[in-house]
């Protein structure tokens, strides 16, 4: 059974600081996704990582994938309050007809002034 673990589960950080969220998964895969969820809302796609060494950046967020280590990171640079949300990574273990994503438990990010 595929397991996807994120840490930390909760992160409180000050505006302007940098931090990294980690996503480990238990089986071979080169398809990893990051999503954002605001309280009470649905999920918004942030990044799609499809190969070893893939790196994607959008604004203050940068995601990377190391398939050999089965690890993805989401790095936050100079955090701002608007980044407060819960962030999920998800893994698709098999590149089949359907995308059967297994999600991590989520990291709740709180950026304080």
């Amino acid at each position, binding site marked *: 059974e595929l397991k996807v673990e994120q840490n930390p589960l909760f992160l409180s950080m000050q505006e302007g600081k940098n931090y990294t969220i980690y996503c480990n998964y238990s089986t071979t895969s080169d398809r990893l996704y990051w999503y954002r969820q605001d309280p009470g*809302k649905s999920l918004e796609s942030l990044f*799609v990582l499809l190969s070893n060494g893939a790196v994607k950046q959008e604004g203050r967020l940068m995601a990377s994938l190391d398939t050999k280590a089965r690890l993805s990171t989401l790095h936050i640079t100079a955090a701002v309050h608007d980044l407060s949300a819960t962030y999920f990574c998800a893994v*698709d273990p098999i590149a089949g*007809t*359907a995308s059967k*994503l297994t999600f991590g438990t989520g990291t709740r990010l709180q950026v304080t002034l």
Partner: protein
Amino acid sequence: SQTIHQWPATLVQPVGSPLSLECTVEGTSNPNLYWYRQAAGRGLQLLFYSVGIGQISSEVPQNLSASRPQDRQFILSSKKLLLSDSGFYLCAWSPRKNTGELFFGEGSRLTVL
């Protein structure tokens, strides 16, 4: 552009009552469709997915069923709700043969009393 809609957005149902959640996708054809559930403060669990009309795959045994009567319509049902069916239900779609990225609807929050 493609859009996905779910309804109702919120519902409160008594134990033992039936359930019907509906999801439709616009602006694309032959999408893969998915139902996920998110229990309070937790990650997402894949319930059902469909790669075509009338084709339903169930991921976990439960009190729910799904149907796909039309290409862009996906319905989640129950004949008799249990307390444990409470949660945030999210419909999602993905194009065939793509990156595997899922696009989520707005969600339906179900409370069973």
